[in-house]
């Protein structure tokens, strides 16, 4: 598709990709943009491992008695799928790839505050991933990604410790990344870039970093306690040795519920950027959207008990967790309304990133509203532990977070690589993903209400039709994810040169060349306007490149 650029732009002669050569220049780089690409490569690899496990599961479930594997193997498949997708794809996805690439660019900085720490984060992630991959090839792990005790600590005979250690280690990568972002956002904003001129992506990355720093240590402690019990038989969780089996769930969900928002908040940030850029409007209710991120990140620490309504936790505790869970829904609703209102009187174009953003709004709305079913105590009793839960969180995590991630990758791809991908293919893939996704997960809502429990390797035959529909959807979804892999790789070499700002978007990252130079900006930009200032008759359109000429003063 034509991007209607009048003069054919050329790639800059020296940029961050070709400034230095050789494998060492990548493995020892401290450039946040290169580290973002290291993350991109590794999480894409993990995504396809987790995805392969999902496809095998869905194929297996075509037959009620199981079409493919033994129940033990099925249990390992869903455990691998969950552990890999949550800890090694979703949690690092937007923060570590897009966050790494964009946080310094968006605030007009040369790099993150601690570039070496940033590289260390990636190595920590890789070491953690190696442990988990080892757990998979050395026989697998069958506890589910939730590692519930006393099954994981006493009864499971699979490679629980290797997987858990992998998760433990990779957690430190999150903590360091969060720390790096917070310091960078506080200390390294360009002159004139006040808090309320920040792009909403930065606000949501900041809110996410708070969860990284406050939540992840609790996960580390929990896994440490699990290891103490599994290896040294210290009674912590198993009542047979004097422990409390529910203590694990309290600790685990104290991290893992906020972790859902680690996945969703950055996605919301990406969507705010996309909606603004493709409707050429300032985000409606900017400060409401910004503060709702903080409301979410704080309340998210107080709702963990809604995973435990049927565990026998006191009904009064249930009431409190229920009311707080309803409360956390409200900031999300505010965001959805504001994004929709942003479109009003905009100039809306439908390139691929915008399709992903609109897909996000629709699927996130459905995922969020079905979350209200689960916050409703009496209904949760029926739906907890069924496919309804599976459908709900996939609408949030895949329909929400992965859609936004894909949208973000497409939107900033010309900035990352300097080249455009074929927009027609990209729109087609977005559509395939949207259709495949809904066909996969909508039937699972119905299965859940009918009472089909999750994590069943075999199931009663009356659930078959809906399961076959879901499996058919999963194969479409799988193809939908492969298409971008092909054309994006293709575009790195053969795509048309994009130029600094192919979308005519606002934001500091679009005011430098594509790909940017190693130091991001030739001169430190000075910011004189709020984010998304599309409406203002901007400064002479010819001088787009460095904002800075003359420094406006």
């Amino acid at each position, binding site marked *: 598709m034509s991007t209607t650029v009048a003069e054919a732009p050329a790639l800059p002669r020296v940029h961050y990709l070709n400034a230095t050569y050789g494998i060492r220049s990548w493995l020892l780089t401290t450039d946040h943009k290169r580290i973002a690409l290291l993350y991109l490569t590794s999480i894409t690899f993990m995504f396809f491992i987790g995805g392969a496990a999902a496809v095998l599961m869905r194929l297996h479930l075509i037959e009620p008695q199981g079409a493919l594997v033994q129940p033990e193997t099925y249990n390992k498949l869903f455990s691998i799928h969950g552990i890999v997708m949550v800890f090694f794809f979703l949690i690092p996805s937007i923060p570590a790839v897009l966050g790494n690439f964009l946080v310094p660019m968006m605030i007009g900085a040369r790099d993150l505050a601690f570039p070496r720490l940033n590289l260390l984060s990636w190595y920590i992630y890789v070491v953690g991933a190696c442990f988990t991959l080892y757990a998979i090839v050395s026989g697998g792990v069958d506890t589910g990604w939730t590692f519930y005790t006393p099954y994981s600590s006493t009864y499971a005979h699979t490679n629980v410790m290797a997987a858990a250690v992998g998760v433990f280690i990779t957690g430190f990568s999150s903590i360091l990344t969060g720390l790096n972002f917070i310091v960078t956002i506080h200390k390294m904003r360009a002159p004139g870039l006040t808090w309320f001129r920040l792009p909403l992506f930065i606000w949501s990355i900041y809110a996410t970093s708070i969860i990284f720093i406050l939540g992840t240590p609790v996960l580390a402690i929990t896994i440490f306690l699990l290891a103490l019990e599994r290896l040294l038989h210290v009674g912590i969780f198993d009542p047979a040795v004097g422990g409390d089996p529910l203590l694990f769930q309290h600790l685990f969900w104290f991290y893992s519920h906020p972790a859902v928002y680690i996945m969703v908040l950055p996605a919301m940030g990406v969507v705010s950027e996309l909606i603004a850029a493709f409707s050429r409007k300032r985000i409606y209710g900017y400060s409401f959207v910004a503060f709702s991120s903080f409301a979410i990140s704080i309340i998210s620490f107080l709702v963990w008990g809604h995973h435990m309504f049927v565990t026998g936790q006191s009904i009064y505790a249930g009431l409190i967790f229920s009311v707080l869970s309803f409360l956390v829904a409200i900031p999300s609703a505010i965001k959805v309304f504001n994004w929709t209102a942003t479109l009003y009187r905009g100039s809306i174009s439908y390139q691929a990133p915008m399709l992903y953003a609109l897909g996000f709004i629709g699927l996130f709305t459905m995922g969020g509203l079905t979350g*209200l079913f689960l916050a409703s105590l009496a209904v949760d009793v029926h739906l907890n532990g069924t496919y309804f839960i599976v459908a709900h969180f996939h609408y949030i995590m895949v329909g929400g977070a992965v859609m936004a991630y894909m949208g973000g990758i497409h939107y900033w791809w010309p900035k990352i690589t300097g080249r455009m991908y074929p927009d027609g293919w990209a729109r087609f893939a977005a559509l395939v993903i949207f259709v495949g996704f809904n066909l996969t997960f909508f039937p699972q809502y119905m299965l859940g209400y009918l009472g089909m429990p999750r994590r069943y390797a075999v199931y009663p035959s009356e659930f078959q039709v809906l399961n076959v529909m879901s499996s058919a959807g999963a194969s479409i979804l799988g193809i939908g994810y492969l298409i971008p892999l092909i054309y994006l790789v293709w575009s790195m070499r053969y795509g048309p040169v994009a130029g600094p700002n192919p979308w005519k978007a606002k934001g500091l990252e679009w005011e430098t060349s594509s790909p940017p130079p190693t130091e991001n900006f030739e001169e430190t930009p000075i910011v004189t306007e709020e984010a998304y200032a599309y409406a203002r008759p901007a400064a002479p359109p010819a001088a787009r490149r460095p904002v800075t000429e003359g420094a406006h003063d």
Partner: protein
Amino acid sequence: MRSAFQSLFPPGTPAVMCLGFPLHPAGASTIARGVDHLYFFLTALTLFFTILIFSFILYFMVKYRRRSDDEQPADVKTSMALEMTWTLIPTALCAVMFLWASSLYFENSRPPNASMEIFVIGKQWMWHLQHPEGPREINELHVPLGVPVKLTMTSEDVIHDFYIPAFRIKKDVLPGRYSSIWFEATQLGTFHLFCAQYCGAEHAAMIGWVYVMTPSDYAQWLSGGVKGESMAASGEKLFTQLGCVTCHVANNTGRCPSLVGLYNHTVALRDGRTLLADESYLRTAIVNPNSMPLPGYAPAMPSFQGQINEEQLLQLIAYIKSLGAEEKKSGEK
């Protein structure tokens, strides 16, 4: 008998079918209807808001599509009134949902006083169910229609979850403690019983059937099944075998307190706590007696942890409960 019932009520007949798959599960307990009503309300709300958002997006997409590449739309000022509207309306709706769901949950949590009791033990990977009158079942549960049934449940190993979708009830079954759940069946038939908490290799095989029978059929089933002694009778034998009887003498002259009339009475502990002597209390008192010392008694009782299994524990508790029942009866006379 089992096959006779299965032919009478083909397993898992769903209530509403459409295009070869069920749309709505059977609702066969007093709880189901209330849960379904709330579910329908939530579904309607979800549809309303999804359609609302989608309509606005589609309308804006068409109306405000980009007409030229250099378009610069005018700014729209954020309206405080609008922000307040779409903050307060969802908040009010959430309040309605919360109050509705919570009051229903409260109602559903409390078993009626006159409930019949059945005991459940989950273990990898089967459900063991025991009726106080004696009959034991594996992965099958026979219950009478229209009688409230209270289940007292525990696990011998990992966490399981007892789930009957047609009754809309579910509760985790934990090792080391008792949890309880209740239902009153409103429909004759055969319904799924699932384990809904992942518990290991054969988790998906930890399923069974609930048979709802007329009370007279149930009475016949109770007497016609395997002839076994009642749980309380088994418990009494254990009470003698394990030597409990040497200390816990009925007239309070032994080294330990009498257990007659203990069940469902409050007990004052040495540390000042007052506990209700329910099943959980009795369980802890047997498994870990030193955690609840009584005033006036030396902590002489050994722990029975690991010496008796969950089934025997339930039998002992049934026996202790029967002591209370006898006293009450004699008191009434």
